[in-house]
């Protein structure tokens, strides 16, 4: 098979490429039946490629449960680069909203302006000025300096968060709890941060 020949070339160029890597075989580009798959698997096995699962096979093959074969998988996605995170924040387990409810604003929010969006998240591409306020039923994302007030989870949502690229806020509030500039750690000023609710207090932590 031509594909196997190309695979051999690849292995020759990069001998360690498949070394100890778990590989999922995508069969959707082939029309292989059971004997074909069996042949392919033994070919790959002879090259020391560890197949941990197969997906995208023909439906008739999909239902097969041949002993010794890797399990059939569904709904896999191509992985991008490996993610390494220092101290990941607690992952939000936000329930999926019924309809996409988000407001995108691509202009700065000026002093005296008030953005109120009880239905969901608010994203602002720009700054929120001193004396301006943004209120959202969900989370608030500010891709700029947050100098005014941000009130997330305004109708009662303890999972709402506030993100900004530069913290200079006068007030942060989530689910009715608030924190004024005076109570914020001064070392966080001017930095990209996120704020979330941990029991009964607002936690502000740098994003970088």
């Amino acid at each position: 098979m031509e594909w196997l020949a190309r695979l051999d070339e690849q292995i020759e160029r990069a001998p360690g490429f498949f070394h100890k890597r778990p590989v999922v075989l995508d069969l959707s580009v082939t029309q292989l039946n059971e004997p074909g798959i069996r042949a392919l698997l033994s070919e790959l096995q002879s090259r020391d490629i560890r197949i941990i699962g197969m997906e995208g096979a023909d439906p008739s093959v999909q239902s097969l449960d041949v002993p010794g074969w890797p399990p059939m998988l569904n709904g896999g996605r191509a992985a991008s680069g490996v993610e390494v995170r220092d101290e990941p924040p607690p992952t939000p387990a936000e329930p999926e909203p019924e309809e996409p409810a988000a407001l995108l604003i691509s202009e700065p929010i000026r002093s005296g302006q008030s953005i109120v969006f009880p239905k969901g998240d608010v994203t602002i591409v720009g700054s929120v000025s001193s004396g301006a306020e943004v209120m959202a039923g969900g989370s608030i994302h500010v891709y700029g300096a947050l100098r005014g007030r941000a009130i997330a989870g305004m109708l009662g949502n303890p999972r709402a968060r506030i993100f900004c690229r530069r913290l200079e806020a006068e007030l942060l509030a989530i689910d009715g709890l608030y924190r004024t500039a005076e109570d914020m750690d001064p070392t966080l000023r001017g930095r990209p941060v996120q704020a979330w609710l941990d029991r009964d207090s607002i936690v502000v932590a740098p994003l970088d």
Partner: protein
Amino acid sequence: MAKVLVVTSGKGGVGKTTSTASLGAALAQGGQRVVVIDFDVGLRNLDLVMGAERRVVFDLINVVQGDAKLSQALIRDKRIDTLSLLPASQTRDKDALTSDGVAKVLAELREKFDWVICDSPAGIEKGATLAMYHADAAVVVTNPEVSSVRDSDRIIGLLDSKTQRAERGERMEKHLLLTRYDSARAARGEMLKTDDVLEILSIPLLGIIPESEEVLRASNIGAPITLSNPASAAGRAYFDAAKRLRGEDIPMTVPVERRGLMGKLFGRRVA
């Protein structure tokens, strides 16, 4: 096509009236037909700064209410004949101004002049909102200090929402004029830096006017600085700003007083 320009700031005492007179005079000195209008009903000042206080007969409110014709109320400047003033009433109330009346006066002025410059009162009440409502462009006058910057930010928000252009979904052209800029204090870090002000307000810079005794003196003798002392630092800064309003590309500098050859050779760069 005439352009209606509003000079506004939110905060009082930052130099709106001085800047209206100086920009108006500078444009007129460049050959443009200019009228400056005082919208500060009850606290009129522009007539004083323009040196026309002894020639006021009718005012903006008389014209709005139909008691006088526009030609009767306009005061032509004695020094530059392309410059006119429409004064405010000192005795009447702001409530005498109506949006329709102002629109009518402005439409008439658009026919006669190249530039209609409205000197807004301080604050964000009716007088200020009426002054900006019909404008095509705005000059936001700001001092390099926090309260002035916040008030300017508020005004920019109103310019983007409470004007005819905003209501039609059109963009309002906005320019920042930084006034009372003190190079010595800026160097000592006692004022907001130009970059910080620009970052917060995020509108293009029209000019930087240095703090100067000359400006105060000019106001007191009733002559815009571009007339009384065109070679002064502030005078040159206003001339540059007027050229930028007309679309010329002038490098941004903070003019300094000419004290000698060195001063002539090296204009101070923007901080």
